[in-house]
């Protein structure tokens, strides 16, 4: 989702764990997809380029205590920018713990991918949806239903 506005992109460490400024992660700013929406609420992760005083000490978010490296702004994930990952309050207070989110292809958090998630990049089209998985993976069209299983498998209609 859209977190801030800018003319160019960069990579820099950010602080993100609630109450622990020693924990950092490498954040890369990139240009949002055309479909992206602004983040729905206030958050701590805006860019430090808008600060008046440089460097500005911050509790969490983009910190100028770390070196900035220019980035092309290219997106390396498959998110359309309409969803965010994790609890909303984490963006305002910091993450409870430095855990990791389940990720799909391209490093995109699974929750940020469109349904059906799990679409492989370059692989065969195998959507991971519980009720159709077996069918799409080349199984026979055998509907495993308590009402029809016997009939479809050649049983008699008794």
């Amino acid at each position, binding site marked *: 989702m*859209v977190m801030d506005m800018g*003319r160019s992109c960069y990579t820099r460490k950010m602080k993100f764990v609630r109450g622990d400024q020693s924990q950092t992660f490498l954040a890369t700013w*990139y240009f949002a997809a055309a479909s992206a929406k602004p983040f729905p609420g206030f958050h701590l992760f805006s*860019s430090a380029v808008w600060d008046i005083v440089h460097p*500005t000490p911050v509790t969490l978010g983009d910190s100028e205590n770390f070196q900035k490296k220019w980035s092309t702004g290219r997106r390396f994930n498959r998110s359309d920018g309409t969803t965010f990952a994790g609890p909303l309050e984490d963006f305002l207070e910091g993450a409870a713990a430095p855990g990791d989110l389940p990720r799909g292809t391209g490093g995109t958090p699974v929750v940020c991918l469109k349904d059906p998630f799990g679409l492989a990049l370059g692989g065969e089209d195998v959507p991971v949806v519980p009720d159709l998985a077996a069918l799409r993976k080349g199984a026979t069209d055998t509907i495993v239903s308590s009402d029809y299983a016997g009939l479809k498998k050649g049983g008699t209609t008794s």
Partner: protein
Amino acid sequence: MADAQLRIIIGFESAGGTAPTGWSETWYPAGSNADDALIQAKAYVAKRKELLGMGATVQFAKVTNIPPNRQSKIYFFEGKEGTPTLFTGSGDQYDPTQVDLLMRVQSTTPAARRQWAISGLPDSVTNQLIQSGVKDTFVTSPIFKQLIALIKSLGWGIRKKTANGPPPVFTFASITDIFPIMVRNRKRGRPFELFRGRRLA
């Protein structure tokens, strides 16, 4: 008076002469309620758009806390949130020479003043500036008066540095008057790439 708690950034884009340009205005509201500050920003833009020439638009308003707790939120006036392009220019051709009207902003603290360059003026304003001068243009234009009156009524102020630090120390001084002092040309930066879908995400 204690330092400002919030900052409002208004982002603009215009066609410019040979290449599009983007610029921003920074304002400091009184108080600490960020939602109220966003409402104030929208009210300001509703009036500010009257002084934009054709092809110039207001793109976004961003409200942010003064660090170390840098909480911020962006509101887009065009496109992304489904809002039609309400805040476009008045219909006059935008002046491609990038003429700005430089204003002096005065506050309750005599030493605390700032300059404010009103950019993207329509031809009707810059033509008037040539014909009758800065003072008459300002005095005769109801739009200028309404905009200045709105800024004062919102209680916006100037952030004045009182100690270098580090860290520097600032105080907040409410704006008491705004008036034009000169016309000048000014180069502005590249746009914020709104319409090309190129925002920081």
